[in-house]
């Protein structure tokens, strides 16, 4: 499965550890949620980076105690139409200020990549090779964004404020006067 970070294909340095398997020393690992919660006290001592894969039907607030030492949180799109992880991602980034790698997994297709990036994901297990190769093009498709998210892109809310009123003051006066007439 191709992994895209910073706009291009990279080697995945993280290893998935299955439920009861031993956690290898000195290796970056991604653990299932239950494992993290059960073994957190030991895991925090690990020298190598630790990550978790978090199901999309569980509150990410549960992760808050671990976010300052978790290197990675992987969220899940069981199919691309199930959009719950978009909310989880934004909460992790914007509410809980998670700074580690936020990875999209599951069914991750080209036409979701920009939405994912806007939501705070910075790593993508892209389902199709062709889509991974087209990553830069896909996220560069739009230059206008109506909504602010945590991704740093200017939204029209701020861009318009910076530009100043686009119509003459007369336009606004007409509106106000009209809503008071008769």
């Amino acid at each position, binding site marked *: 499965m191709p992994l895209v970070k910073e706009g291009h294909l990279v080697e995945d340095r993280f290893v998935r550890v299955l439920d009861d398997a031993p956690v290898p020393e000195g290796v970056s690992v991604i653990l299932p949620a239950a494992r993290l919660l059960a073994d957190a006290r030991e895991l925090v001592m690990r020298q190598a980076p630790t990550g978790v894969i978090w199901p999309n039907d569980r509150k990410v607030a549960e992760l808050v105690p671990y976010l300052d030492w978790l290197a990675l949180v992987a969220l899940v799109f069981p199919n*691309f*139409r*199930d*959009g*719950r992880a*978009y*909310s*989880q991602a*934004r909460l992790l980034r914007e*509410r809980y200020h998670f700074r580690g790698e936020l990875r999209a997994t599951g069914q991750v*297709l080209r*036409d*979701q990549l*920009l*939405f*994912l990036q*806007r*939501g705070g994901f910075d790593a993508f297990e892209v389902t199709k090779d*062709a889509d991974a190769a087209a990553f830069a093009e896909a996220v560069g*498709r*739009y*230059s*206008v*964004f*109506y*909504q*602010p*998210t945590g991704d740093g892109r200017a*939204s*029209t*809310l701020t*861009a*318009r*404020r910076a530009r100043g*009123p*686009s*119509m003459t003051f007369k*336009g*606004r006066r*007409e*509106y106000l006067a*009209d*809503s008071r*007439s*008769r």
Partner: protein
Amino acid sequence: MYIYDDFDRTLLDERVRDFRDQVARRLSGELTEEEFKPLRLMNGVYLQLHAYMLRIAIPYGTLSSEQMRMLAHVARRYDRGYGHFTTRQNIQFNWIKLEELPDAMADLARAGLHGMQTSGNCVRNVTTDQWAGVAPDEIEDPRIWAELLRQHLTLHPEFSFLPRKFKIALTASAHDRAAVKVHDIGLRMHCNGAGETGFEIIVGGGLGRTPFIGKTIKPFLPKRDLLSYVEAIMRTYNQYGRRDNIYKARMKILVHDLGAEKFAHEVEEEWLSIKDGALALDPAVVADIAARFRYPEYEVLDDNPPELARAREDERFRGWLDNSVTNHKRAGYAIVTLSLKPEGGPPGDATAAQMEAIAALANRYSYGEIRVGHEQNLALPHVAQRDLPALWRALDDIGVATPNVNLVSDIIACPGLDYCSLANARSIPVAQEITRRFRDLDLARNLGRLHINISGCINACGHHHIGHIGILGVEKNGEEYYQVTIGGRADENAELGTILGPAVPYGEIADVVEDVAAAYLELRARPDELFIDTVKRVGVEPFKERVYAAR
């Protein structure tokens, strides 16, 4: 009406380019149908019985003449010369080819039109009252707020893959012409005790398989908080709406299952974390959007000018005037409704020629603006009263002056089995037959305000649950049958209709409607007691007895 700025135009162009690429990848096989379907739905492209159908958004029901001409162009160039106006202030074209869609969308984009989010599991066209901005009983123009919401919810990265579709409506009048109580979010603008204008938030309304009237979860929300509060509702729904069963995935089910109080609490908790963040609306942002709403430079005119007084002597003109023309907030002006319900015609349809003629008339008589109502009629919102006689003659010539607005033959109907792949039964021929039975204008006037809504299946796109008379098409043993309800209403006293009796076959449904009308005439207390009030007063039983006596 709202004039796009560079940002709006650029986004639209980028969306068209994006869709063109998606279509190309589908036609080449790079995208499977399963992967492509949600993408095309997000651009308003359905696959129906005979062809693809394109649903184009008419934000809050406001169109310019130029846009109407573009719709006529699309009808001629890419379709079969006509379009259908829907119950959510959109327009549908029934014969579109997928291969030609990118070009059609590029043409539409030139006029600021698009099909973005008119389908799919995202937020749909934000609708309001077709008299917004000109109704005398309005406290302010709700379309400014509809536009703010439209922008915020367009290609929203968090809310483009919801459990199911999501519909929002606003009203700013005491009399709700936007049916806010049967939407996922209904917003009622009103003044609180302290002289501030804000929103009552009503959630979890909806029709379809399991209809619900919405519940108020916040009696008064200040304007500043509109976007953040809606965001909190959307985030709650996105996370907790059911994903396992499409028939239980609408927000109305979540609100019902949690209970309004618990739902309100979840929303409130989320909202408290974001209310003072980037989504808090400052007046400069609102003023910026408001500044791009263009209003007519009305003349100073008197009510009832001599041209109008003279023309009243013509009985036909008078009949139309009394039926289709309503008071305007501005002296000397009027709001004119154009009936798209001619006798024997498919309800809500207009030909390309009609669209072009209406565009020209709007330029001449309505400051270039047209409205689309969810009753599937059009309106010209800025007509000087002195122009009414000339306008009427022109409207009559093109067949949109049938004086049946709000009467029994002003039927709201979905396309039904003649077009729609979800339907169980036809609705259009039922509507056509009913208009023939009630062609006599004296009878129609005598019956008074009487809304008939017809849906060809349980998805209720004809809004039959809230019809004074509701008709639902079902299939029984391969035959078309129709179930009748009475007593529904869509306004501030919204209520779902009650089933009248067993479903009847296609051949009998028009007879049943005639019998219901006859029963009303018999049962009403006075000639001016409306049908809906008679039903309220006497209940369904007396109607049932009379209608089913011989069946």
